[in-house]
């Protein structure tokens, strides 16, 4: 068995049934093994490695399982970089496998050689270069474990071409036949294996003299830090019990409590417990872009999106809260626009599986490091059932003053199109967006959402993310409609993936909000640069309907809401028809449409722009 076949066995062992990728010289051996394993591992070839990476990411975001992308050395691997960084910023579990030139050619600036491990160091949880086939099993298992464990994220494994051809077990013999006991496909514990190997190598045992027996460190916080932020054990280490009690006491004593939750709640599957928490103590909740769909749009406790383009009520509630429970959110500059003025009157409690998120951007009074689902479960029985009539009344008045865009059925208004999309696509639909105005409109106005079903590049803000991610998600969507919401700017970046959607009959309906300009940047130029529209009006003449024909897929253009309603319904039925496949629906919109309300970067509530 060679390295490539071993890789296939390891992928199967990790439960991988599909990978996204693009072949090339340095991965020829791996593709040869994929050919042999094609009955068990499906390979999806995209138009571009970036699309493959977003596809693996989209698959991971929808299913919660680790996505796998495969690319060749050099440009193949650098084309993954944006996709890996996108996954990193949104904590999406991903294993990227790259080929590299043979070990003998590494470091010589060989053809298609690049030091991808160095390039991806700051955008992966960890990465590996496999120097010998005998390291492969341990590395692949560690890679999958690291990608999924704690706060998920991407891991890269770089495999030089000779390693993917090496016969497994060969080093042992070379080294003088050190024992037979190195299974090619050892049972499930890479770490023991790694440990035992080290012992053989250097006679060093795990129980190193450096490890003193448990000397518990005083502060709960510092203990976690020094344990390396390890969340392996129970998150509720004894010291955090007191923190848990303290947090519960704060919440129980609050007059104006608010929960602010983010993508971590989605990742932990803690939505149901969150809802219980909100209901039990009548606590209103606000969410980040990454947590859209965790609570229903119409739910009483859901005040909606917070931050730069968040709701009035959501932003005001956080500003006036006396206790703020932060769960799985990282207080980024799009939410805590001005960290000094973020929830300034509140006792802040923060739950995060990554202890480094606590106190990173905004300091908190009570830290609860650990799995948000487990902590919610521990918190719930400690929370008293009660209401906050005055607070609820105040919030109701803010809700009544929420920004209301004007309807106009004679043209296409973004908010009306979004509402229509969600009305027709239904509650089970999966929405995948690109980045820009359409992304925020989708977050604001798509009403029916399920957890893990609003897939968007929140952290890195990657234009061109959507199509690949939607295609990746569509493979695991079953009968659920996949709607790709994009703008003409984002779509132009990676619409080449149309060929992938056609090849695989991916039933993705793409709705293109075409304002012919780079709307979000232009909106900033309007507001802050006195309408100096530098490079945001590229005068493109792209005819999306004709372009679609070139790719071999149906496309429609609509002029008003009634037309859109009929066309979108038809598009969905075509996509899921006898011959499933992609469909585009183009929606021309006015180039002066803006995303409102808006709080400028670094600003606070007083700076909110409402019209």
């Amino acid at each position, binding site marked *: 068995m060679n390295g490539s076949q071993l890789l296939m066995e390891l992928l199967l062992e990790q439960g991988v049934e599909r990978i996204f990728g693009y072949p090339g010289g340095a991965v020829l051996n791996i593709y040869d093994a994929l050919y042999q394993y094609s009955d068990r591992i499906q390979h999806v070839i995209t138009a571009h490695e970036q699309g493959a990476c977003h596809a693996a990411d989209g698959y991971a975001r929808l299913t919660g399982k680790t996505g796998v992308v495969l690319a060749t050395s050099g440009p193949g691997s650098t084309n993954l970089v944006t996709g890996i960084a996108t996954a990193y910023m949104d904590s999406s579990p991903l294993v990227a496998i790259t080929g590299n030139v043979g070990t003998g050619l590494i470091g010589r600036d060989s053809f298609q050689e690049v030091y991808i*491990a*160095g390039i991806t*160091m*700051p955008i992966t*949880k*960890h990465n590996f270069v496999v120097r010998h086939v005998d*390291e492969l099993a*341990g*590395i692949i298992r*560690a890679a999958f*474990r*690291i990608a999924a464990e704690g706060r998920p994220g991407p891991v890269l494994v770089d495999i030089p071409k000779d390693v993917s051809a090496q016969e497994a077990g060969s080093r042992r013999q070379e080294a003088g036949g050190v024992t037979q006991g190195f299974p090619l496909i050892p049972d499930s514990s*890479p*770490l023991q*294996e*790694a*440990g035992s*190997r*080290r012992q053989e190598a*250097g006679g*060093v045992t*795990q129980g*190193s*003299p*450096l*490890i*003193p027996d*448990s*000397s518990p*460190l005083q502060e709960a*916080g510092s203990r976690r*830090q*020094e*344990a*390396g*932020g*390890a969340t*392996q054990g129970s998150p509720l280490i004894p010291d955090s019990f007191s923190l848990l009690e303290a947090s519960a006491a704060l919440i129980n004593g609050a007059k104006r409590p608010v929960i602010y939750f983010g993508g971590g709640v989605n990742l932990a599957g803690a939505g149901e417990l969150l809802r219980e928490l909100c209901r039990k103590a009548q606590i209103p909740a606000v969410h980040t872009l990454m947590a859209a769909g965790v609570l229903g749009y119409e739910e009483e406790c859901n005040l909606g999106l917070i931050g730069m383009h968040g709701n009035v009520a959501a932003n005001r509630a956080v500003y006036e809260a006396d206790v703020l429970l932060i769960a799985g959110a990282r207080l980024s500059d799009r939410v805590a626009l001005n960290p000094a003025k973020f929830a300034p009157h509140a006792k802040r409690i923060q739950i995060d599986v*990554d*202890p*480094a998120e*606590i*106190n*990173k951007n905004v*300091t908190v009074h009570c830290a609860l490091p650990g799995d948000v689902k487990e902590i919610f479960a521990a918190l719930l029985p400690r929370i008293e059932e009660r209401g906050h009539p005055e607070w609820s009344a105040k919030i109701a008045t803010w809700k009544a003053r929420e920004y209301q865009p004007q309807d106009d059925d004679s043209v296409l208004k973004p908010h009306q199109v979004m509402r229509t999309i969600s009305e027709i696509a239904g509650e089970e639909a999966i929405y995948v967006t690109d980045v820009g105005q359409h992304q925020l409109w989708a977050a604001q106005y798509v009403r029916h959402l399920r957890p893990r079903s609003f897939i968007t590049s929140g952290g890195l803000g990657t234009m061109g993310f959507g199509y690949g991610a939607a295609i990746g998600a569509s493979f695991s969507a079953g009968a659920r409609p996949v709607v790709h919401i994009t703008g003409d700017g984002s779509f132009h970046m990676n619409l080449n993936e149309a060929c992938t959607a056609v090849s695989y009959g991916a039933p993705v309906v793409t709705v293109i909000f075409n304002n012919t300009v780079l709307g979000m940047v232009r909106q900033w130029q309007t507001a802050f640069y006195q309408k100096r529209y530098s490079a945001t009006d590229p005068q493109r003449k792209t005819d999306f309907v004709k372009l679609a024909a070139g790719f071999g897929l149906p496309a429609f253009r609509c002029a008003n809401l009634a037309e859109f309603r009929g066309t979108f319904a038809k598009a969905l039925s075509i996509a899921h028809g006898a011959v499933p496949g992609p469909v585009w629906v183009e929606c021309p919109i006015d180039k002066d449409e803006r995303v409102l309300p808006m709080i400028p970067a670094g600003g606070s509530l007083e700076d909110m722009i409402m019209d």
Partner: protein
Amino acid sequence: MSRNVLSVLVDNHAGVLARVSSLFGRRGFNIDSLSVSATNDPALSRITIVVSGDETELEQIIKQTAKLVETRAVFRVEQSSGVLRELLLVKVGADEQTRPALREISVIYKAKIIDLSPGSMVFELTGEPEKIDAFLEMLAGYPILELCRTGVTALQRGAPEYRLKERLLP
């Protein structure tokens, strides 16, 4: 802003220093000095880092460093509960007139003269960073031709008080 000494135990892998320094670069943490050394466990290296920053920054530095897969332990070495040492080599331009005065300074600081050439002499001094600073201050009036400091290396006094996190990597 204060100067803090962090001791980081890492898996002894190729590239681990690059990972640690990449993290510091990316997060904008300021390194005053950094030294890497072997330990009594061949599987582990110790990186001793001197950083400046307030408590909040230091908390971030410790937590982010702890998150690296190859980091097995991170802890702070307090001046009071640790021993800190640094090695200095300094080459001073000196002639027959200035040599006795320089020699007198070196005797007081217990610095060694490890090279004497017609126009210069080289001193070696080991000690706490403050002592080295003070010694260099005494030399300020003389022409310093070349200088290098190793950066701080440090151990806690008494029994070790940290725990190693689980080894994740092969």
